[in-house]
């Protein structure tokens, strides 16, 4: 007699709703006529996210349950991260809604007759919305998955759409496609590492689940070579996704080449999802073997923080600067991971919201600064923007100050929480390095503010376009949250603390 497995649809519903919405988006793309499409896609996507969030809110107290035959664990941290990803996706889609960033027909070769025809006819494909939602569903699954198969599936579901999305830019298409290809090749390579590592860990423990792995480590008796190689390979896959040194080299190119709203979404949401999964794997699956990986991950955290901060100094392109800044932030988040304590988890949860929204806001501002050929990301041409449009310059400065961790912004509270978790766990040297890296990073953030406000406008055609309504809403939301979480962090931090637990 076969019984059908119990799936707990209610707990899985947030993910399923997003998936359903994405599929609906594909149908819309196919059947609805061109004129209505963009608007309809936008409405459906936002509605899907809101409904998923509502469902998530409903099950928020049912944390500590396993779903889908224990391959998914809906616990506090999982629910919080899913919520974070949904919020970031919502704001990200507000930015993506400005279709001016995307190629009218991505499948047409750059410079080809088809492309010219597509541009001329005013046709626009809006597949970016369903693609975003597919990525979101993968991101939501990634931090709650508790066995390596599910983890791998989630990793691929979140990655594949992103590879495509990186290549959708309307302007500088070759650069964009190069970025997409680079991201795809390196991403596929790192996925292979992850999968290989998972296989080795299976060979070691005889189980695909994180709990099985822990039991096997406790039990001993397995072949440690498999364990160590497995840990190493799985780590490579994860560290690639979060953009940690030495697996960071794709970050600046992809950030620069991808359409700016996509870069913002990717930087914010991927980081939350990937760090959620990393934390879970190390915390739940590999805690018992921390002697083997903690020293190395700590070293990587140190190198990542310093490298990101130092390398950003010599950059002149705002998107590349933000890319290196995201590498430095990955280092800070890794500091939270190796803390391996509850404060570290709470700090990571808070940080991913604070950093994510500031990132979306900052990239939102980048989309507004343009000349006749599109966005201007060369900061030397941003000189004196503070004079032309003080409000936009002030908002950008706010986000940069938050990245720099200046008090009264959300970034400061996040950094404080991470450093105190690291100190609490005894990794005092990580605090010292983190502080030094912050001090270095302050330099390039402030230099941008200096250029915005204290330099005279260079005499060229750079201007701030009048922001589309939704972009304005997105930037405004991000700015408000950045200030609010700086002034009264308790609003979110207390929640993060309540949700900062994993179940085994």
């Amino acid at each position, binding site marked *: 007699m076969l019984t059908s497995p119990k799936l707990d649809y209610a707990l899985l519903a947030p993910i399923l709703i997003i998936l359903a919405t994405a599929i609906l988006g594909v149908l819309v793309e196919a059947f609805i006529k061109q004129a209505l499409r963009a608007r309809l896609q936008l409405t459906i996507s936002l509605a899907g996210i809101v409904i998923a969030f509502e469902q998530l809110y409903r099950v928020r107290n049912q944390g500590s349950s396993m779903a889908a035959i224990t391959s998914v664990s809906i616990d506090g941290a999982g629910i919080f991260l899913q919520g974070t990803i949904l919020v970031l996706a919502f704001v990200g889609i507000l930015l993506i809604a400005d279709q001016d960033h995307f190629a009218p027909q991505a499948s047409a070769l750059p410079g080809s007759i088809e492309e010219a025809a597509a541009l001329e006819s005013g046709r626009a494909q809006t597949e970016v919305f369903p693609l975003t939602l597919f990525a979101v569903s993968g991101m939501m699954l990634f931090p709650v998955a508790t066995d390596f198969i599910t983890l791998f599936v989630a990793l691929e579901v979140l990655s594949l759409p992103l590879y495509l999305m990186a290549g959708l830019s309307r302007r500088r298409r070759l650069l964009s496609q190069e970025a997409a290809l680079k991201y795809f090749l390196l991403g596929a390579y790192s996925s292979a590492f992850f999968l290989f590592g998972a296989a080795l860990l299976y060979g070691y423990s005889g189980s695909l689940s994180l709990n099985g792995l822990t039991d096997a480590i406790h039990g001993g008796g397995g072949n440690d070579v498999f364990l160590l190689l497995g840990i190493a390979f799985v780590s490579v896959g994860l560290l690639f996704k979060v953009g940690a040194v030495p697996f960071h080299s794709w970050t600046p190119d992809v950030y620069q080449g991808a359409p700016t709203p996509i870069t913002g979404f990717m930087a914010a949401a991927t980081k939350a999802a990937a760090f959620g999964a990393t934390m879970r794997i190390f915390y739940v699956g590999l805690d018992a073997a921390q002697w083997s990986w903690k020293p190395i991950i700590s070293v990587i955290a140190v190198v990542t923080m310093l490298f990101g901060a130092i390398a950003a100094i010599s950059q002149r392109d705002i998107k590349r600067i933000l890319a290196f800044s995201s590498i430095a932030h990955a280092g800070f988040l890794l500091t939270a991971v190796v803390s391996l304590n509850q404060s570290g988890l709470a700090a990571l949860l808070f940080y991913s919201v604070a950093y994510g929204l500031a990132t979306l806001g900052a990239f939102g501002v980048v989309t507004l600064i343009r000349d006749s050929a599109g966005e201007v990301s060369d900061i030397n041409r941003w000189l004196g923007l503070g004079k032309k449009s003080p409000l936009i310059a002030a908002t950008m400065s706010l986000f940069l100050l938050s990245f720099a961790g200046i008090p009264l912004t959300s970034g400061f509270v996040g950094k404080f929480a991470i*450093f105190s978790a690291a*100190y*609490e766990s005894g990794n005092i040297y990580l605090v010292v390095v983190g502080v030094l890296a912050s001090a270095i990073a*302050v330099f390039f953030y402030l230099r941008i503010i200096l250029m915005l406000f*204290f330099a005279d406008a260079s005499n060229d055609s750079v201007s701030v376009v009048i922001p589309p309504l939704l972009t304005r809403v997105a930037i405004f939301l991000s700015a408000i949250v950045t200030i609010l979480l700086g002034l009264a962090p308790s609003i979110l931090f207390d929640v993060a603390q309540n949700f900062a637990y994993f179940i085994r």
Partner: protein
Amino acid sequence: MSILTTLQLLPLIGAGLIAFLPVSNAKLVKQVALGFAVLVMIVSIFMAFGFEKSERSLQFSESRSWISAFNINYAVGIDGMALVLILMTSILVPIVFLAGWNESENGRWSVKTFYILLLVLETMMIGVFAATDVFLFYVIFEAMLLPVYFLIGGYGSGERAAAAMKFLLYSLFGGLLMLASVIGLYIISTNQGGGTFDITKLSELSIDTATQNWLFLGFFIAFAIKAPLWPFHTWLPTAAKSATAGTSTLLLGVLDKVGTYGMIRFCMSFFPEATKTFTPAIITLAVISILYGAFLAIGQKDINSLIAFTSISHFGFITLGIFALTSQGLSGAIFYMVNHGFSTAALFLTAGWMIKRRGSSQIADFGGLQRVAPVLAWSFFLAGMSALALPGLSSFVSEFLVLVGSFAKYPVAAILGTTGIILASLYVLLAVQRALHGETPTSAAGIIDLNLREKIAIGPVIAVLVLLGFYPKPALDVINPTTQTIMTHVGVSDPIAKVVK
């Protein structure tokens, strides 16, 4: 609500109000700003009268939960030291507004922005001395850099952007080191029964020697950059040279005091053992600062740089007094902080008027000022006399106390420090001679004397310097209990004078 909270809210309300005023009406903006600054001054004087001198504990305390997850509170309260510093701040701000009535008009941004920044800065300057929660202190300590950054970069002259950047980078670097120590203290308090940022509770922790030393250094370097002590001083001359007279006054007169204030409030009370360990090294740095600042001041050709280097010398005296760990030295140092605030204000403001009238900040471009603008010249002269600690002016009292206090324990340092006084007369008198006496160059002949507004601004500063010079008792009475509390806490006592027969 504590009166300290009111004091912090008032300038903020003023800034909020100004934000709604029209940009075009600069005069109204200035009047409203001045009105609020005067109001703050009155409230703070009122508070001073309610201050109980004999009371050892913190007064006007208030505590509200801010970030409950880390047990961070909005907690304020003052002792004698904080009181005199807050009084100094609230008196200097309206004077700066009045003295620099027109200095905001050539800035990169509007007059309105200038006064909003200054009023926000005033809130923070009061808050930083009132905070009794280390986290709150840290937040204000860092956040107050931003208004100054924009004040230097937006309204200064010369290489203002570079000066602003240098100032901010130095200060932030120190601040981040301090952050590591703040976190360390918090974790240690967590391990000893309940995490807290409360100053009083933190000073009761028992911390092992090695940890004390590291945490001490984190705090101390931040404060030494702020103060600034040699070799952490290089940002100061560039900042002082570029900033407007009013900004320089607040920067050196008030903000830099946070450094020396922090050494007493945090370094000494949290880490008594480390304090004793590092004292010889710090005394050495202090003496180097005194001599280095004085020597470089002699060679300066620019008035503002000259004042900046004299300040480095004076901060050396303050640090010497603090770490001499005697009651005279400590009281003298705290009193010195107040006097230095007023005497720097006098110097920067009169120098600012001279520079504005002459269109140059080079001392060589002046001469015979005494003849053309006697009131201005006399004010500058008095300010200079206060910088060289002429008996009868308040800085004499404090410098004397510092030297007496340090002589008891560190005679060599005190003797070397005394030569700083001689050098001080050299750099002040040289500048006075070149700028005020001699031939009046034709280009400087058109300098007009102070107008009524400027006289009103400089009057109180000189009055304070003279009054406290002849009758320092009210200030010392307030300061002494703080000194005693700290001495007891660190566990040192005054050396008993040996009677030589």
